[in-house]
């Protein structure tokens, strides 16, 4: 990088000007990556040590390898089928190519083939969105934990409804919520006399218990008010 030999020039900002680069890209037009977690966990048990973690880039193989220069990226279950889809906001650089300025929506066709559990939280003493709450499920000897957030990544925000992958398991043996304000821990093994079954959504209201719901399903527009907030 000539900036190293010409720091005085660097300080003029010339290396950051369009004219310095000309019509050449700068690490542009590169594929997004999907790093699949292929860690061998021994049937869901936690990995014994960090060194065991192993990932493979399957973006090309799954078709998630969008090449536009994305900045923001968000994941949520936009079609309520139990898996997380992806949306990105792309910057066209100075390519002059209109198609590179389009947003990309990638529908997930994989997750729905396995079992899942969706969890929504409603804070009472804690903030209503339950941001900062941590949900842990136990299923078939394995544990998983998710955090409720409102903003992360680069200028982005992901689903506040938490998604757990259950693989072939028919449900969760337990579900534990740690609420952010009070630190109160609530643990559930059943919902009424029902198990915490797969392919459902549950809602936990702080101090008031757990409800078994379903994700809203397709309605003729406009619809889908099944889980509208009861204030």
């Amino acid at each position: 990088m000539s900036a190293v030999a010409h720091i005085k020039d660097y300080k003029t900002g010339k290396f950051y000007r369009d004219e310095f680069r000309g019509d050449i890209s700068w690490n542009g037009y590169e594929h997004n990556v999907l790093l699949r977690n292929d860690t061998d966990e021994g049937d869901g048990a936690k990995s014994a040590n960090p060194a065991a973690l192993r990932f493979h880039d399957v973006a090309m193989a799954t078709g998630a390898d969008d090449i536009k220069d994305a900045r923001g990226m968000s994941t949520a279950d936009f079609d309520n089928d139990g898996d997380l889809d992806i949306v990105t906001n792309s910057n066209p650089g100075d390519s002059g190519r209109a198609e590179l300025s389009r947003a990309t929506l990638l529908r997930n066709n994989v997750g729905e083939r396995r079992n899942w559990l969706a969890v929504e939280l409603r804070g009472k003493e804690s903030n209503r969105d339950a941001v900062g709450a941590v949900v842990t499920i136990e299923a078939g000897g394995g544990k998983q934990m998710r955090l409720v957030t409102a903003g992360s990544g680069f200028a982005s925000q992901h689903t506040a409804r938490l998604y757990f992958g259950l693989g072939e398991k028919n449900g969760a043996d337990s579900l534990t919520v740690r609420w952010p304000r009070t630190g109160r821990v609530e643990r559930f093994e059943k919902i009424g006399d029902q198990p915490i079954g797969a392919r459902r959504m549950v809602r936990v209201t702080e101090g008031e218990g757990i409800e078994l719901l379903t994700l809203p399903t397709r309605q003729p527009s406009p619809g889908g008010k099944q889980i509208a907030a009861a204030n």
Partner: protein
Amino acid sequence: MSKKQKRIVFYSSPLIVLLLILGVGKMKLDYIETNAQLLAQMGQAAQKVLGEYKSGVDKADIAKVLNCYDDKYASEKDGFWVEEEDLQAKRDGVRVYQWKLSDAKPFGKAEVGNQVSRYLKTLGKVEESKFKLDSVEEVISPQSYRIRSFLWIRGTRDAVGRGVDGGAEMTKASFGDAGKPHAGSDGKTDAHGQEAFETQVLFRMWLQADGDTWKITRQELISGTTVTGDRKGFTDMWGHQSLDGEAANGANSSAGIDFVSHKNPLFATPEWEPKAFEIIKYGSAGVSAGDYDNDGWYDVFFGDGERPRLYRNKGDGTFEDVTLAAGLPERAPGINVGVFADLDNDGYKDLFLGCYTGRSRLYRNVADQQSPAGRKFVEVTDGFKFANKGDSDFIVVAAAADYDNDGDLDLYVGRELDARKNLPTTLFYTRNAEGNSLLRNDGNLHFTDVTRQAGINETGITLGVAWGDYDNDGWQDVYVANDFGRDALLHNNGNGTFTDVSKQSGAYDPGYGMSATLGDIDNDGDLDIYVSDVHSGQRWYGQAATLYKYLLTSVRQGTIYDDFPVYKEIYNNVGGTDWSSYGDKTVKGNALYINDGHGKFTDVSEAARVNPFGWFWSSTMFDYDNDGRQDIYAANGWITSKSTQDL
């Protein structure tokens, strides 16, 4: 002191301290200078060799590839490369093959030729390829050095014999044992027996000067992976009228999302022309998912340089642009980020819009029977003030959490630098952005800037903010990713103040931070950290001698005086011993920090292979395949120009 004495002190003290830091004398400086020049020359020479190699691969030109190898090529422990299927990783229409060496044996150029020739035949059609210099590992002599290089190829290849979708047998494809066909064949491929593949290989190579040119005299396989797949795991919805559609049907949108991004038009005006840091105009923008009308269908907000947009998910497989109907402005330059958060705890998500060129805005979510969603946003920005009153907010990122445990959500906002007058202080450590802010929610959508009381003094170019209680003490901490180095982990002390614990926690990341996310990626019940950085495949630029050279140049050219505070900070963070590798670390790519359960972190990026080559922006942990293990998605790419050729 006289003016003259003051001047002497001013000019000499940084230099003296610098020399102390380096612990060097004149000879050492000469050595550094020579070494830096050598490194630069060798880097360029290596790139030339790899460029020739790549062009040979692209054209399946064996002679051209072999011309990169020295006639005296010799390796005691080489061997033919074997693609061995990783059975654990075979699922969902995806196959992963690990590259291994067959029996190690002495190898000469003839064997290499055999191997390359065989390999090129397996490739089929090469659609894209790169062969990048990762780093110069060792300068052995002026005529000899060792590098790490990265070969990346994608295309389509003959699937026959690789047991696609087949049974349990281990499949081996060998690039070398000529005459031995691949084992197994069940031919479940497309009509032409072709499958899409992508290969990523890291090599270690020894290069030696041969007159004016350089040749490979020895090489080792560090790691290699080939992945094949049906590319059906995700569907790009562009052209689809509905989320349900199996095939594109000519829609000029993705199920109604017709958002296109724009540059900020203010950058073309005299008031906002980014004279110092022009490239900022390519930085926008974020995207946020939130259910603003509580109908159970997630809606989407896009930040933008000029026209931010809100799309409502109608629940029938389509989205519609409701920006105006929902009470948001038709045009609002510089809104880079939106955060959906129920800031008044009334059960509906309010909306914070962070702005770079101008004022940020706050909207309350209210009932509106006229709008299809039954909800809309009303601006309540008045309750929202920052302590620093520049002519703009310079905000590019934001995230909400209840930092004081009073039951409402507060906001942390991250700022860029003022590109009209500032550019990153140095290439690898920058502290001259406009300074982040912590805003305390005092109820009724009134916020107080408590940055100073909280002891927060973050002036990096902040492109990522992520909250989470990483040490389980009941208080929300915050991780801040800063471009041009370095990131910061701010521990919430529980008394309204924060302490920068980046160094003692082990999560000190010197890279070009562009994104931060917290989550439990190893299923052990604590929060790990993943950040996006740059791993450009020209890692050698940032290597030790080059960083020393940068320092030397900055002394010679006098910029050291302005930049001295950042050198002092680096010294405080890494001490005097780690300067040789600091530059290397800044460009090592995305990083995964694993929490040991007690708030201490270990960087496992290299071993876990989560530091791919590229220039990454937003990234996240999510379990896309619902198998119970969190995966990572990371957006890649900086600037595409008229030519896609790389700088």
